[in-house]
């Protein structure tokens, strides 16, 4: 037996009893309640991190924050030229400019949450290695960042709608974009949670997500009316089940046309939002212990 040991064999032989509040397993997943509590404690972190990411991106560009306005404008213009002028999908759609900008701008929010969420764990690795915090803060940060990014985009949207004719039919229903937006954000958050874990398990997913997001864009009726171009009734139903289709439709009805949306659309919008956010969160939570490990 070694004599060089600082550890006193006398005390070692006698079991050292440790009070129950003293020792806990390291790196194991917290119970759900505590986890959510800890996540709530990190709300300031989530906000600060989101803002810093925006600032970081802005500082790299010459025009800085100007891109937050220019990017959606140019995007909308591009889609208008292709679909409105060249392909003429606008026939049969009232106020096509408004229809298009609402579709493009709001869809981009979801798309950026999805692609950002897929890479949330990889991009957050330095933070994961350095600090102990509920990892769900990382996909959450992505969504909060995109929502903050959306504020100037929304201002552009309002400006475009106000400036370009024809005039919108403004009614009290305008306020309905608030619940619709909350639902869309929750849905995007659920997607971000879900894909964050998938993207961690299999990094290749991020390539696939980019392609699928493009399909999704065309299937959501962003720049044409599904009713006009899709004849097959089954296919039409499937496409209308798509939550983004509902969200975009709700925005247009509230903001452009000033009409009531069908009830089934609201049910779909709310239902998808809660299903995705709850299951996405639980799915992410189950993988909590694995995120430190390089995949």
């Amino acid at each position, binding site marked *: 037996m070694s004599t060089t040991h600082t550890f006193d064999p006398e005390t070692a032989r006698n079991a050292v009893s440790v009070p129950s509040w003293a020792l806990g397993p390291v790196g194991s997943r917290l119970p759900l309640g505590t986890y959510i*509590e800890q996540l709530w404690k990190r709300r300031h972190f989530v906000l600060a991190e989101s803002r810093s990411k925006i600032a970081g991106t802005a*500082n790299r560009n010459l025009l800085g924050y100007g891109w937050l306005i220019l990017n959606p404008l140019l995007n909308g213009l591009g889609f208008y030229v292709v679909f409105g002028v060249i392909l003429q999908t606008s026939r049969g759609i009232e106020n096509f400019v408004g229809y298009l900008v609402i579709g493009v701008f709001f869809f981009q929010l979801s798309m950026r949450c999805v692609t950002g969420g897929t890479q949330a764990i990889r991009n957050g690795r330095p933070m994961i*290695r350095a600090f*102990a915090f509920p990892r769900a803060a990382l996909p959450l940060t992505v969504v909060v960042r995109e929502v903050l990014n959306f504020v100037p985009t929304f201002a552009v949207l309002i400006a475009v709608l106000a400036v370009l004719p024809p005039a919108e039919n403004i009614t009290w229903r305008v306020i309905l974009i608030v619940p619709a937006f909350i639902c869309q954000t929750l849905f995007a958050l659920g997607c971000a949670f879900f894909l964050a874990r998938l993207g961690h398990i299999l990094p290749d997913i991020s390539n696939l997500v980019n392609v699928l997001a493009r399909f999704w864009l065309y299937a959501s009726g962003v720049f044409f009316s599904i009713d006009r171009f899709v004849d097959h009734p089954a296919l039409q139903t499937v496409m209308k089940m798509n939550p983004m289709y509902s969200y975009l439709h709700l925005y247009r009805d509230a903001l452009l046309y000033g009409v009531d949306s069908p009830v089934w659309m609201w049910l779909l919008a709310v239902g998808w939002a809660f299903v995705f956010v709850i299951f996405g969160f639980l799915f992410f939570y189950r993988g909590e212990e694995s995120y430190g490990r390089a995949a």
Partner: protein
Amino acid sequence: MGEQPERPQIGGPAVVVEDVSMSYTVRTSAPGGRGLAVRARNRLFGKREKVEALRGVSLVARQGEFVGVIGANGSGKSTLLRLIAGVERPDNGRILARRQPTLLGVNAALQPALSGSANVRLGCLAMGMSPRQAASVHEEVVRLSALGDAINRPMGGYSSGMASRLRFAIAVAARPKILLIDEALSTGDATFAQRSEEAMDAMLAEAGTVFLVNHAAKVIQELCTRAIWMHAGRIIMDGDAETVAEKYRWWSWNVAKGETEVANKLLTQAVDEGSMQEVRVVEDPAFERKSPRHAARNRYTNGYRPAAVWPGPTPTPSGKPGFVETDILPVISEVSVHGQPRSATSRER
């Protein structure tokens, strides 16, 4: 450095590592050309090799102990620290700790695009501080990092020494009880060495525990009270820092000089002489919370220690207001630890 300050009393267990093993599966590319077919074959059917980073490591670190971990590259030092920090989970065995350990790794830049100052704030918030708490420790962090005006420059432009200084300062701001330093301080200069040493001494005096991974036996001898020599995923010596580091120094000198025979002899000698603690965590059923202990009922209703309370004027033991403990470590049940040094030869499998 120079004269050693009075070492604090060694207290109860702070970190318990019980027979932990860890392996990584990596894809190895078979040699045989760089052709497309070969590469595709490697990718799909490539040999998957298991790299055993740790093979049955046990130790108990106590409060007030400064543990140095030395060993050659690839001996499992960093893996051990990552596991203790809870960044990764071990394949086998388990790790218990008194408090959530804080890991200081070598990848120091947190958000490269942000200024050092903004990184301080982010780091503090990530550890669970409120904005007010983060603001109150900010000045202290900046002072400890000794970065001067560089604190306002983007962290991506920092030298590795500057970045690790800032990381150290942020970590210490949360008053960690268990600090794991993975070669992060080896890049600092003399000014910083002085300050970080003071900070660590203060931690130890408050019954903290520090693990330090370093290649230089000299650093271990100067700073640590105890040293652990790791080799090929095993602890081959665990004991007084001076002795262990000296033996390691001899061995590594011989390896470097190409004196493989002497080195091997020294290694076997170390394995024979050295010992690893044998640790067995015993969960005593008598302590389970079935029995109605009046004190227990409101202390941890769901089996978890209540979160550190803040805000409030409660002075921290150090007397420095503004310092807080942030902790997300759940606590299980009553455990007792049997620790006993055991000769390394007796546990060869």
